[in-house]
């Protein structure tokens, strides 16, 4: 392979090199243009110097396999790659700001940390749903678009669970970035989407406190400390950090992946609905675990690890769906809300990892747009929340897996669909009232939800209305 000296103005396969960007660790990057392609583009050319780290070369190959598979706005669009003698990848140039550029501004306010975290979690959920774990989530690999969405770049360490894992075949042991790598990655596991949630937890910790929870350990021996040593709680650095944010961050940083949020959608849900975060002992923690707890974990970490099984990313996502139950409350709806409870119970019985969001829409009219207090002086909003909790009391689901939401809206169907879309709901359960001439004329809420929802919808009817 010949070493090319690259200069602005050079052309490679019809792509004109315009300007160099900051090189990545393993490749040079160029803004490029092509007469036939309007998209803003960047070309990545791997360093192929003699003695170059083989990981760099395989990582480049891995990115060339995975990038063409990805769709959507959370990853750069793949344009073209070169052949064996002329290796390069051309992809979409994502306009926006690298999250790395914001590290100087830390600590950021909690609301901003939550907004950035939500955007990254939504992006990760989109990747995971496409069978890909990123495995190198860190600020320099996150681009915040101007519209607030996040895109993840650099798939050199990523894993697609339907493709051969070229990295695992070449390298035994940990592959990742020291400050962000998850405990299971340290042990060689490369198929768990929750590894990305751990790395995102490190990012959120850093953004919220200005400190790195595990420093920047350089070698794999030091990385192993992550198997037993928990981080200093964020509130120890920044006492005004809200307890819910500490709860969320420390859940992401749990050593055992089962103790973390089950999916990126679940994490996005928590960050978006901070008032619904169930505060546990994690939120109150002021210091790290004691020496006995850490010693017990250290002993456990010395045990040989079972070889990682071939696990499907899709299966992990499917284990923890978000179910949205849309409930009508009040007189005249008892039969229907009872029937919805039965339908939801059956779903929960088959999906033990599910999360349940109980949603009621408080319909406001244009005339009285602000929620009013009723005659008894009780706030209707609060009363609806109480009734929702009462409705859900007998459902077979643990308290930390249920949330309650009262949406105020002019159009109930729009509100439900918007909520489902924003929170990446997997399944909506909604009741339909008896058919009538008037309802056929006006159109029903459930019919509109069925037509426009971004997910599966179950429509429940009571026996009398069939």
């Amino acid at each position: 392979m010949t070493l090319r000296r690259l200069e602005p103005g050079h052309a490679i396969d019809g792509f004109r090199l315009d300007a160099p960007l900051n090189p990545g660790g393993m490749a040079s990057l160029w803004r490029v243009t092509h007469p036939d392609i309007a998209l803003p583009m960047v070309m990545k050319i791997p360093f192929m110097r003699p003695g170059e780290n083989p990981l760099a070369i395989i990582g480049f190959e891995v990115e060339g396999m995975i990038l063409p598979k990805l769709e959507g706005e959370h990853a750069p669009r793949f344009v073209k790659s070169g052949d064996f003698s002329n290796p390069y990848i051309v992809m979409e140039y994502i306009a926006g700001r690298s999250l790395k550029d914001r590290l100087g501004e830390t600590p950021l306010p909690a609301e901003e940390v939550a907004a950035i975290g939500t955007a990254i979690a939504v992006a990760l959920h989109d990747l995971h749903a496409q069978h890909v774990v990123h495995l190198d989530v860190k600020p320099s690999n996150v681009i915040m678009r101007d519209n607030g969405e996040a895109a993840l770049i650099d798939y050199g360490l990523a894993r697609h669970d339907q493709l051969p894992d070229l990295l695992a075949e070449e390298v035994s042991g940990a592959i990742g970035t020291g400050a962000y790598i998850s405990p299971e990655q340290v042990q060689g596991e490369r198929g768990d989407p929750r590894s990305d949630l751990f790395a995102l937890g490190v990012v959120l910790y850093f953004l919220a406190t200005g400190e790195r929870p595990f420093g920047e350990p350089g070698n794999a021996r030091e990385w192993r400390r992550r198997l037993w040593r928990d981080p200093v709680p964020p509130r120890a650095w920044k006492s005004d950090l809200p307890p819910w944010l500490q709860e969320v961050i420390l859940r992401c940083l749990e050593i055992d992946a089962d103790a973390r949020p089950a999916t990126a959608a679940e994490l996005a849900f928590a960050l978006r609905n901070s008032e619904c975060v169930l505060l546990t002992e994690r939120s109150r923690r002021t210091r790290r675990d004691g020496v006995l707890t850490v010693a017990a974990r250290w002993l456990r970490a010395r045990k040989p690890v079972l070889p990682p099984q071939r696990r499907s990313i899709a299966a992990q996502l499917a284990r923890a769906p978000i179910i949205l139950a849309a409930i009508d409350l009040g007189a005249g709806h008892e039969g229907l809300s009872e029937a919805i409870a039965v339908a939801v119970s059956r779903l929960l019985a088959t999906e033990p990892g599910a999360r349940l969001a109980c949603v009621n829409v408080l319909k406001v009219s244009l005339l009285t747009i602000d929620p009013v207090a009723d005659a008894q002086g009780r706030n209707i909003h609060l009363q609806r929340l109480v009734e929702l909790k009462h409705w859900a009391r007998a459902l077979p689901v643990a308290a930390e897996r249920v949330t309650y939401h009262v949406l105020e809206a002019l159009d109930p169907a729009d509100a439900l669909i918007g909520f489902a879309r924003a929170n990446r709901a997997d399944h909506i359960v909604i009741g339909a009232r008896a058919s009538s001439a008037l309802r056929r004329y006006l159109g029903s809420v459930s019919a509109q939800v069925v037509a426009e929802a971004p997910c599966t919808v179950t429509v429940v009817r009571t026996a009398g209305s069939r």
Partner: protein
Amino acid sequence: MLIAIFTDIHSNREALEACLAHAAHRPIGRYVFLGDYVGYGADPEFVVDTVQEYAARGAVTLLGNHDSAAIGTPERMNDVAARAIEWTHRQLGPAQLAFLASRPLTVRDGGQLYVHASAADPAACDYVLDERSAGRSLQATDAALTFCGHTHVPALFHLTVTGKIAGFDPDAGVALPLTPQRRWLAVIGAVGQPRDRNPAACYALYDGGPRTLTYVRVPYDIESAARKIRDAGLPQFLAARLAWGR
């Protein structure tokens, strides 16, 4: 160019027709048949005639060990297979036997090698089942891509940067990128007698543009194929295993 690759049809008319019908909806630029047209199943004449038609239109058609046995070459074979081959030999006419007899063991097409079994010794028909046997095949050729059959089990092997061999169990319907940075050996599953516990017929599509290989599974009328095997007086086991996919 999109290349459709079929192997181990084994006289299964229903499976072959289902796969060809599936491929016919795609812009196939080349058809490749990796051998073992006959043996086991009840429709050797139909299968040989069909493959011959494709060959006349430019398809690559190789010789498999069952085809070789059917024209009278002694081959190592178990008792059930040998009984099916004796029966097959009686069904085929001189033109069909002559077609089989003139098939090559390998075809090289640029960077691609087509062979029925291992490239290490094409006539010996070794099974490419694991990293060791895949390594022997990969070392015997400098082709960037080798396509073979013979095992009835889909698998994808590749030679890593440091010279190790790694294997992969491919999911159906996923376009697998065969990167230009390394050499690949794709074992295509059987059209007519799958043995990977999935009874659906298997063939593969290779797209030379993005260099992706997609294993395709096509359900077919197993009951009819099995009934014809029983009606022909062939060993019952050959009918039963179609539904088991093993």
